[in-house]
């Protein structure tokens, strides 16, 4: 197992944000966590990353793990390559590692740039390169595309899919976006009020097109689970 959670509970000031989560993820599996705001998605991710601790239950995660946050979280005073290897030993090898990670995300020409000079999409790719440079067994993605424009987001989906094919870490993607979850994940988990209410495999063949009937069926099922009622548009 890459991730093994049993009966994980987390309580913030008397409110049970996670009310008993059981979750196992096998190595190399891509899991999307869906849910409304405040259902505990991000709390699970923070517990998996080690930034937060559960109050009850057992949590087993790989030692080599990394996170791409919603914002790039780059150190403005460090050049792009230094940000990519921020946690590595600072030796001659570090720059090489950074350059190869940056080339993988298509930013080979920005190695020596300052983070402030990058666009939002580029900065997020640097964050992705930083996460890959530690060769994680578990990659945690906390709504990493939420603040990008729609076109950039689609390109990022392709990039993440490619990188996952190549490195094959277990991935947990937290998202609000049902389509994003279906396009990228092997398995989609819906959270509601701190519990897992749905856990489905995505059995749509790749590349997953929105026009695929199974895509539409799964999409509708997930939207129903999330309590979104999608009427067809009515004429006024």
């Amino acid at each position, binding site marked *: 197992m890459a991730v093994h959670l049993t009966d994980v509970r987390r309580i913030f000031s008397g409110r049970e944000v996670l009310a008993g989560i059981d979750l196992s993820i096998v190595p190399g599996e891509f899991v999307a966590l869906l849910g409304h705001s405040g259902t505990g998605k991000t709390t699970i991710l923070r517990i998996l*990353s*080690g*930034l937060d601790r559960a109050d009850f239950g057992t949590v087993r995660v790989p030692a080599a793990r*990394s*996170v791409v*946050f919603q*914002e790039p*979280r780059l*150190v*403005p*005073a*460090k*050049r792009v390559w230094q940000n990519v290897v*921020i*946690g590595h030993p600072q030796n001659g090898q570090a720059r090489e590692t950074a350059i190869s990670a940056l080339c993988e995300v298509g930013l080979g020409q920005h190695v020596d740039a*300052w*983070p*402030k000079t990058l666009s939002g999409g580029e900065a997020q790719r640097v964050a992705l390169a*930083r996460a890959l440079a*530690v060769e994680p067994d578990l990659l945690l993605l906390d709504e990493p595309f939420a603040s990008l424009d729609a076109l950039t987001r689609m390109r990022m989906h392709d990039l993440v899919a490619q990188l996952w094919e190549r490195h094959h870490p277990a991935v947990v993607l937290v998202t609000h976006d049902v389509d994003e979850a279906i396009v990228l994940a092997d398995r989609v988990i819906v959270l509601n009020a701190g519990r897992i209410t749905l856990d489905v495999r995505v059995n749509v063949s790749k590349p997953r097109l929105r026009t695929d009937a199974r895509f539409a069926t799964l999409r509708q099922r997930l939207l129903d689970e999330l309590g979104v*009622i999608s*009427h067809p548009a*009515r004429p*006024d």
Partner: protein
Amino acid sequence: MTDTLSVFSDASETAARTTPSASAAPRVARFPRLEDLSPSEAKSSRWRQASPWQRRATRLLVPVLIIAAWQFVSEVGLVSDYVLPAPTAIIAAFQELIVTGELQRAIVTSSARAISGLVIGGTIGLVLGLFAGLWKLGDDVFDGPMQMLRMVPSIALIPLFIVWFGINESAKIALIITATAFPIYLNTYAGVRGVDNKLIEAGIIFGLDHRKLARRIILPTALPSILVGLRYAAGSSLLALVAAEQINARSGIGYILTIANQNQRVDIIMAGIIVYALLGLALAAFMSFVERVSLPWRTDIVLG
């Protein structure tokens, strides 16, 4: 409007239906009043289109005119030489001071006072600021006293320092130290505390321990704020220098001023004041240089 609401809530849908006047009213779009924002000759002032050289020449012209007017007023005798000596008289005073070597010695002495005070005070402020900013213990121990002490105007300490250190160099430098330590302390503390917690979290995720967090994330990110403190401290060091040199100066610019005062040489007094101003300008230019070199990633450096 009612349409989009009904997707989310059935209540608003029924509400919209029960008030037919709202939804059934014919929607006729009014023609709005238009505002002309297209580029036009008349609207942008001619001065905005002036070349940088024109603007620079104008900037230079104003002080030149003021000095010329000053010279004129002195020469026709509108103002007595004793109150306001002519610019040429002040230049002559400079010559006098330079020929005797007095000015050069004074500048070296005064700069040495300002710089040694700034270095010692700055180091104290920086170390305490880092200690209080990075460690809770340091915060609890130092921040309270520092916040209280910074309220004391440093010039008010002169009598106390004369009692403690006498009237020689140490009293002067002690005054400059107290004037410079606080701005650096406050800005270092604020800079370290102001580092976004999200960056720290990212650092923890990528395996940084406390020392590496401080070195690789906190200090570089806090550096702009620390340099703002240094800039303030540099200004304060000069203020404190002027005040300190009123204490029984036997050398330095303050000494030149004291002697000139006794001899009623207003031209030399003016020259001394100008030297203080030039020292201030030199310090400001130096600080801009330091900021440009140490913050290459900042595109929005605030000067002055």
